[in-house]
């Protein structure tokens, strides 16, 4: 018995000392911001928590882009050193990690954040420390922060060409559905305005709670409404259940779902059988048949064999890194954040989706609009804009008053971003 107690005590002390060792070695190794021939860049994506799976492909894209840039000689002879932090899908941790990257590692900019919640959690730190975040996710708009460059598309870039096409080719009676969240509601508000503008009719509008998985009621409502087409802004895993329930409760692709919020990873989860024949819109699809896109996809797949697939998020994150490179090449001193932010205005990059450009005035990005029909688990692209579309954070169909001021209120307006 005595022996057992002794063992327990030893184990306890061992455990404590391991923990202390881990914490103390962290304290010691954390001050290494003196080497002058590298440019430090932060990468802030989750490796754990509820959105880790989606964000893995974004981390991969950063690795791929920065390694390519370094192999090609870096920026004015300086290599990029990227520091990855995991914010564990938690906005409060995102706040802590952006502070760590900016204040301790002194990065020149950070590529990161997936959810709007995590982006918004970093805003006050970015403002206080005058730091820069490059945000690659497609977003609902109605927010522009002076410290953020939005590389993901705005809702208008998905909807302005998609909706007239749907009304002309698919059907005029539209049922709007979405998750009960800011992104779907904002997108659907815009969709409704466009549908009415082009002579369509909204026959119903329904919102399911975030993460909802039982769509029997909603599918029945769609059936009863006489809708000819469903316009969907459901996000995340809800899509998987929705497409399955849609078929199970007797609806077919004759009344197609036109989604603005699914990508290849959702398609994988939904399954070929349930997604067949429906439509979707995004700036980039991995099925895009151009040299640049094919090279991008095959290089990604050869580098990362971890079950992730190339999606619009991968591409936008990759573009973010190259836009940052172009901006860094334009400035004298990379640590001068104000100059760096200004350098973003008007820079272009020949991305896998085609040539994109950061807007001169509103910090958002000109991207393509592409949509197609889902066939055999991939999107057959039916339509592509000739050139990148203008981003409208406050879309002109809803806010004509901002159309002359770069589609946004003035920078000092409290409506611009939560401050």
């Amino acid at each position, binding site marked *: 018995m005595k022996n057992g107690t002794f063992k327990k005590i030893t184990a306890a002390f061992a455990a404590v000392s391991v*923990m202390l060792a881990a*914490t103390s070695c962290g304290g010691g*190794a954390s001050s290494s911001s003196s080497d002058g021939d590298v440019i430090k860049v932060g990468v802030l994506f989750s490796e754990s928590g509820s959105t880790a799976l989606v964000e893995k492909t974004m981390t991969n894209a950063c690795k791929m882009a920065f390694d390519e840039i370094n192999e090609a000689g870096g920026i004015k002879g300086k290599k990029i050193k990227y520091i990855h932090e995991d914010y564990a*899908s938690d906005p409060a941790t995102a706040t802590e990690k952006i502070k760590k990257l900016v204040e301790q590692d002194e990065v020149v900019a950070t590529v990161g954040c997936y959810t709007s919640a995590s982006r918004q959690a970093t805003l006050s730190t970015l403002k206080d420390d005058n730091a820069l975040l490059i945000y690659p996710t497609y977003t609902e708009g109605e927010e522009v922060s002076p410290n953020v460059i939005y590389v993901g598309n705005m809702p208008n870039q998905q909807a302005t060409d998609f909706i007239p096409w749907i009304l002309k080719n698919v059907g005029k009676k539209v049922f709007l559905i979405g998750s*009960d969240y800011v992104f779907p509601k904002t997108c659907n508000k815009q969709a409704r305005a466009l549908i009415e503008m082009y002579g369509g009719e909204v026959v119903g509008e329904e919102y399911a709670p975030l993460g909802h998985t039982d769509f029997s009621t909603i599918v029945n409502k769609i059936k009863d409404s006489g809708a000819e087409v469903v316009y969907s802004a459901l996000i995340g895993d809800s899509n998987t259940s929705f497409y399955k329930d849609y078929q199970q409760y007797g609806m077919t692709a004759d009344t197609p779902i036109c989604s603005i919020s699914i990508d290849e990873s959702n398609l994988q989860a939904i399954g070929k059988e349930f997604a067949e024949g429906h439509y979707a819109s995004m700036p980039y699809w991995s099925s895009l048949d151009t040299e640049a896109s094919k090279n991008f996809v095959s290089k990604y797949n050869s580098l990362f064999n971890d079950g992730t697939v190339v999606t619009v998020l991968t591409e936008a994150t990759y573009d973010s890194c190259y836009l940052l490179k172009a901006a860094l090449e334009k400035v004298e001193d990379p640590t001068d954040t104000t100059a760096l932010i200004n350098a973003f205005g008007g820079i272009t990059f020949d991305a896998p989706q085609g040539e994109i450009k950061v807007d001169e005035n509103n910090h958002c990005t000109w991207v393509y609009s592409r949509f197609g029909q889902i066939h055999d688990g991939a999107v057959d692209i039916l339509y592509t804009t000739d050139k990148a579309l203008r981003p409208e954070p406050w879309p002109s169909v809803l806010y004509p008053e901002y159309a002359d001021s770069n589609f946004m209120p003035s920078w000092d307006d409290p409506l611009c971003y*939560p401050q």
Partner: protein
Amino acid sequence: MRKKKNIFSKLPLNRYFDILMLIFLTAFPFFTKEFRVEMMGRYICYAIFAISLDLLWGYTGLLSLGHAVLFGMGGYMIGISYQIQNGVVPAFMQREGITEIPWFYLPLQNPIVASILGILIPALFAALIGYFVFTSKIKGVFFTIITLALAQIFKDFIINVQKYTNGFNGLQSIKRFSVNGSTPLTKTTYYYVVLVIAVLVFIFCLWLTNSRVGKICTSVRENEARLGFLGYNAGAFKILIYTISGALAGLSGVLYAPATSTITTEDIGVTASTMVVIWVAVGGRGNLTGAVFGALLINWAQSILSEHFSSAWQLIIGALLLVVIYFIPNGVIGQIVALQRRIITDRKKNKLMEETPKSKKMAVVK
């Protein structure tokens, strides 16, 4: 006489540990960067939160898996306060078509009032839940299940009334107590404010647990039935301690939201509630020191490990937790306290042996 001397001549080891921790935390801002100070400030808020759970779980034996609800109420009060400063309707409300600040938010405009409400409302909520649960004699694991459900319901509620709470995105830009547009407290000043409040809370809880009320709560944990036979109304004391615990959890939320400048639904749900249980379990429950130590240790370990091993840190934390829970179920500080207690009783027994005549000693040994 001698018995008394034996107890009071030796302060429990963990009280020395408290003093050491206090010295360390006081000196902390002098030898580190400002953002680490801010981080530590946030963890001290967590420590207050852990203390509030320790009162309930460690001392009274009522395990709550929904304690973050009370924490979140405090945080959201102060969070809303900074959304509606100067009578401006926040963007998330305007988006839903609200043009005026709702009447029930008006008192929150003053951050001081919001802070007081952030303590009172969780306390009242805890009292109400406590009243229904404890007067209907719901005990043990059933209380735990109710609180677990409560955490999920409260999180869903906050997400679903996004008109008023900004739902999943949470509230941002919470200032460090700037009143009427004055400049917010600096990070270091705020750190010391939080530290002083934490010390006061600690002393209050020390007093409370050594008072009559505290002793009765400990008896609720040890043998509730016997307490009933002695004529005490155990339910009333449980409601009381749950209310106090709720007020302290609310207070920690009020302090926490300005420390991180943001509060979201991640801070109030089941996951957050489970985290605080883990801190108290690892530190050791029923002695206050353990709760504080556990909260500080695990949060630091998480933060530092994730900086160095950005993909494997959760595995390391998980392994360490398993080691602690498996080998020292009392928790780190709990084990130290138990060891010291054993040494004292051993010594007493030995003394007893020496004092007894030889013939009797043989009998004792037999």
